[in-house]
């Protein structure tokens, strides 16, 4: 299993490079994961998306679709793609410490 080292601690990752254990997640780790995705700075809007994803996952066991992000997170589609240029749903899930979303939409 792959691991990443953050401040001297080895964090386990799953096959997609997402956190293997959600309990490892904290805000510093989120910043580290964001940097890996080419996002050097997490703005308040990034955090809105990340926190929304964590909230939905907590309740439903899967990350929200891009449509739900658009409708319910308070950040519209255009902005979502500006915040996460390499694909909002997937990248935001990674930064949020969640597994890759299962849905197609």
């Amino acid at each position, binding site marked *: 299993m792959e691991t990443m080292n953050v401040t001297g601690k080895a964090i386990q990752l799953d096959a997609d490079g997402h956190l293997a254990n959600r309990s490892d997640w904290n805000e510093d780790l989120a910043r580290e994961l964001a940097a890996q995705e080419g996002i050097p700075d997490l703005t308040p809007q990034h955090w809105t998306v990340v926190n929304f994803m964590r909230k939905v996952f907590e309740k439903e066991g899967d990350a929200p*679709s*891009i*449509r*739900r992000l*658009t409708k319910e997170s308070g950040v*519209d*589609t*255009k902005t979502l*793609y500006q915040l996460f*240029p*390499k*694909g*909002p*749903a*997937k*990248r935001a899930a990674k930064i949020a410490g969640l597994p890759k979303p299962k*849905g*197609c*939409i």
Partner: protein
Amino acid sequence: MTQTNTVEPIQKVSIIISHGSLEGVYPGLIMANGARMEGIEASLFFTFFGLDAIIKKRMNSLKVATVGNPGMHMPTLLGALPGMSAFATGMMKKEMEKLDIPPIGEFIAMIHDAGCEIYACRATVDMFHLKREDFCDEMDEVISVGQFYEKAAGAQIIFT
């Protein structure tokens, strides 16, 4: 030992939508949206009856084909009964809503906002005497097949 994967990931897709039925349009839209979600560059080219999906007056009233569609598992005569197509369409829309698949108009707007370019086929536009104002705002440009190939340079072309 880990195996090294030497296959290059897909960078860009150009998706052609040529059918105007609900089941003819959705797969291409889902693939375009899915590409953008993966960070893959995407464009959509609507041709022939596929244009209905970006024509303002028609885009939200596309129907499932209940005749000549073996996938419906319905005898042709039954499929031809009045209201059958509307009924099948209603059922399908309900199921899609459960999966968070948006209605066509909303989906096109979402895909366009995601950075996917939307083109209409010049030959079809001329053939059906269509004007810019017939199309939804998201339609970026009416282009010829030649322009389509130019814009699709380096992309995987997917015909639906």
